[in-house]
């Protein structure tokens, strides 16, 4: 496939695939865990082929936003449109079938499955996912350890596995929650290279990230969250001039 060839040759253009079509639109999203009101009207949109970040301090509601999109929290109100479909009333298991891959913050590697079983676990949601060979080419460590118990892998390998298994399903919109958390710099760099390759394949990515230095060169736009709302949107072009403002928002 030409896309695969392109991924391997690796052109490093930051914005190759925007066609302006809307992949995800979240409007006035409120979310509740039992009695506690976590999200207070979140609004943002992601275009096809874009990589956006959700930045903010701990507890700002970034992970909850991703979980709300997957219908993994309690009650939600507002609107979540995926590829033009309203998903607020959908059952949780229907949402990934719209072509969404979710990588949870705790990685969710299954201890009772070996690496390859973990990799093959999520059902295919579209026909054009990466093949097992392509995935092993992208993550050679996983091939070497494919018979190991999933949770015996190092933190970095577990993160690679958590990413790899949603690439196999054919998902085109990836929701990635804190994928660099607690990992060594060399692994973080490798994950950055993976994200670049995924962008080149035309994937749309929402990245929840603490490590702004990791996210900054990858993203097209940044959304800053606080107290369950989006309080600021900063495009990659605006970033150099607004860096200090952003730092003060994030408290770094």
């Amino acid at each position, binding site marked *: 496939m030409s896309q695969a060839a392109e991924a391997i040759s690796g052109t490093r253009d930051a914005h190759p695939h925007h066609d302006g079509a809307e992949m995800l639109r979240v409007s006035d999203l409120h979310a509740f865990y039992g009695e506690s009101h976590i999200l207070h009207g979140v609004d943002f949109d992601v275009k096809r082929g874009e990589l956006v970040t959700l930045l903010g301090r701990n507890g700002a509601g970034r992970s909850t936003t991703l979980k709300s999109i997957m219908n*993994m929290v309690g009650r939600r109100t507002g609107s979540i449109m995926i590829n033009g479909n309203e998903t607020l009333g959908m*059952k*949780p298991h229907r949402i*990934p079938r719209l072509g969404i891959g979710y990588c949870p913050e705790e990685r969710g590697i*299954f201890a009772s499955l070996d690496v390859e079983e973990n990799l*093959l676990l*999520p059902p295919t949601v579209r026909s054009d996912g990466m093949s097992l060979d392509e995935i092993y080419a992208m993550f050679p460590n996983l091939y070497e350890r494919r018979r190991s118990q999933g949770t015996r892998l190092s933190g970095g390998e577990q993160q690679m596995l958590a990413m790899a298994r949603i690439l196999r399903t054919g998902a085109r919109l990836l929701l990635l929650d804190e994928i660099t958390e607690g990992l060594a710099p060399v692994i973080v760099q490798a994950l950055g290279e993976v994200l670049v390759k995924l962008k080149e394949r035309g994937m749309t990515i929402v990245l929840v990230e603490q490590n702004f230095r990791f996210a900054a060169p990858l993203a097209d736009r940044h959304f800053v969250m606080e107290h369950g709302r989006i309080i600021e949107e900063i495009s990659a072009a605006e970033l150099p001039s607004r860096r200090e403002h952003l730092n003060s928002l994030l408290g770094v």
Partner: protein
Amino acid sequence: MTMIFGVPLMVFMGQLMLGLINGAFYALLSLGLAVIFGLLKIVNFAHGAMYMLGAFVALLGLQHLGLNYWAALLVVPLVVGGLGMLIERFILRRIAHLDHLYGLLLTFGLALIFEGTLINFFGVSGSSYPTPAALEGGMNLGFMFLPIYRGWVLLAALVVCLGTWFVIERTRLGAYLRAGTENSALMQAFGVNVPQLITLTYGFGVALAAFAGVLAAPLYPVSPTMGSSLLIVVFAVVVIGGMGSIIGAVITGLAMGLIEGLTKVYYPEAANTVIFVVMVVVLMLRPAGLFGKEA
């Protein structure tokens, strides 16, 4: 005559065989309990009632519909398993979000309802189910006399247990089950219909119990109370093996049957209590059970 520790070989082997047969039933029932507990986290106190229903449906099917033994082995688990799926879908699911203790109490109540209803119609004395003609009689193996039906029960139980183990440990469906046991919310986020998986799992566990019930029908009196007396022992087996361990349930079931059989040979007075003694010892030394993971 050959003697083993002062007991004739034939007697010794005969008791061992009886023990293994009991063990096969312990294994089948604790396997179903383990499968259900794994995904639903419910201690299914209705399991004995489902085993009893298996035997009863086979008996009533034979008397009223002419359903023969071999057809019953296939049809009865489907019928009772279907009943199990209805119970899960319309009763257990409503309390799934509550503490698991409620599931235990509810299934216990269901067991009493099934048992009481059948006692009302059929009494407690029990009826006998004829041994299928093809499995009548026995063989003299030289060292022991083997009733063919008992050999068949052992074989059938082992095949079903190993088949279940294979499906759970080696297939994609089994991987869904194991993963759903660990983190069902994430499985939904991957697009797996977990509520449906839960219904099927409960139905399958119940079908295993019903299968055991059909196997038991020609061996034991078919009575409404046949399940509750067995279930107490099966729970002890599950505690010994460790909650939720598939292979642990099978091995422990067979082993406890053997231990019970051996006790019958050497100290018959303790035969009914030996499993509980083992349970107490295991709980003191290894609270998670022999095959369970320490929390």
